């Protein structure tokens, strides 16, 4: 089973590789090559930092088209942090920046009058939404599990139905994870969230395995 971590020059892909290395029976590849991405059984789209720069790096490598092709086959994908935000249609960073557009909705900055500090850095638990009860990504995740967040922007999905969890910061309940078909994404960093985070990655691998058996 091949899991590809998309390496497009943004973010600490090594951390995700290290975390995935805890699990047996999978081949992990860090790459931006078309053939390897299209042949993958599961893809992780990481990312930290600025939305616009990330889109520039993706465009430089023709990755939006390659990822679109991959998604069309309904194969599993996990977006992490900025990798979640990139799946949306646009971000208001620097006015307006186009995203991958796989998921309806936009990415906005935390409100300017927020009383809390920015960036939002720290460990938080999730407020699970009804929809998440069926998602395998949170299998075995208790309500008091904690995940590491670091971000200043939040996703506003076009449809509430895809939201699998919300998280509270400074009185705002923002969308902290989504699922749309086989596309999963989380605002937090599972690869940096100790055992609770590793469990999310393990569940994603299970999702990939199950999907693989069906094909």
């Amino acid at each position: 089973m091949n899991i590809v971590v998309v390496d497009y020059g943004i973010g600490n892909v090594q951390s995700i590789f290290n975390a995935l290395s805890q699990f047996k029976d999978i081949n992990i590849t860090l790459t931006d090559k078309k053939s390897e991405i299209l042949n993958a059984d599961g893809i992780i789209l990481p990312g930290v930092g600025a939305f616009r720069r990330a889109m520039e790096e993706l465009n430089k490598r023709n990755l939006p088209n390659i990822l679109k092709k991959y998604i069309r086959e309904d194969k599993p994908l996990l977006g992490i942090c900025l990798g979640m935000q990139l799946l949306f249609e646009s971000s208001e960073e620097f006015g307006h920046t186009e995203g991958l557009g796989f998921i309806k909705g936009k990415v906005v900055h935390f409100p300017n009058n927020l009383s809390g500090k920015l960036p939002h850095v720290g460990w938080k638990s999730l407020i699970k939404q009804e929809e998440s009860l069926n998602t395998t990504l949170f299998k075995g995740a208790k309500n008091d599990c904690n995940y590491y967040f670091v971000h200043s922007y939040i996703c506003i999905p076009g449809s509430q139905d895809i939201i699998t969890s919300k998280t509270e910061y400074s009185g705002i309940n923002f969308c902290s994870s989504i699922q749309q078909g086989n596309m999963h994404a989380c605002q937090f960093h599972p690869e940096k969230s100790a055992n609770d985070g590793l469990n999310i990655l393990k569940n994603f691998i299970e999702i990939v395995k199950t999907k693989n058996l069906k094909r």
Partner: protein
Amino acid sequence: MNKVRIIARIDINNDSVVKGKCLEGLRKIGRPNEMSKKYYEQGIDEIIFLDAVASLYDRNSLINILKQAAKESFVPITIGGGIKTIKDIKNALSAGADKVAINTQAIKNLDFIKEAVKSFGSQAIVGSIVARRHRYRWEAFIDNAKHRSNKDAIEWAMELEKAGVGEIMITSIDNDGRQKGFDIELINSVTNAVNVPVIASGGAGNSNDIVELCKDTNCDAVAIASILHYEIENIKDIKHRMDINHIGVRL
């Protein structure tokens, strides 16, 4: 409720963990990877490695320590000490660090911070301030607390925030290693001056010091060394003490 992060601060000289008093008289007390692994298993929220001799010697050993830690500790890892160039940051991040802490080079050239933020994002850049008290103000020091900068530490914190750092770590030289509690006034002055998360460092001798710090200041994270290195209390006990005192913490 926000949870105060407990960070293991591991100061390194070559390939040993060192600890002194007031950042001086550094004694070797262990091996970095053994300690970071132990703290991870005990439930630490983050790890900071600081090169105490700031790259005057062999840099590769530090990168190897970082690589090893990133393979076995799945929490955010920060590295600092002697970071001077964009390439230094790139090397640290690709070896497994999530953030770099920068002090001396920021004071020498604030544009370096701006450039680093532009290249890697605010979340990867921690502004590190090492401050010594002069009556009712504090001066920022550089080169691992050896040299004065002539900058007011609180004003410097604001400049670092403006330059785009994602967090500020404030270390009290006076309280470091003395295990008699934090410089609460210093931490409060910094948290009042900036709106980015603040990591308080220097002085924790037991969990009561941490509880007091969290009650009296608006800090977001606590960096501790002596308590853990000398096994005064373990991470579980510290977090339990915070929890029963109604301080948000990851249990």
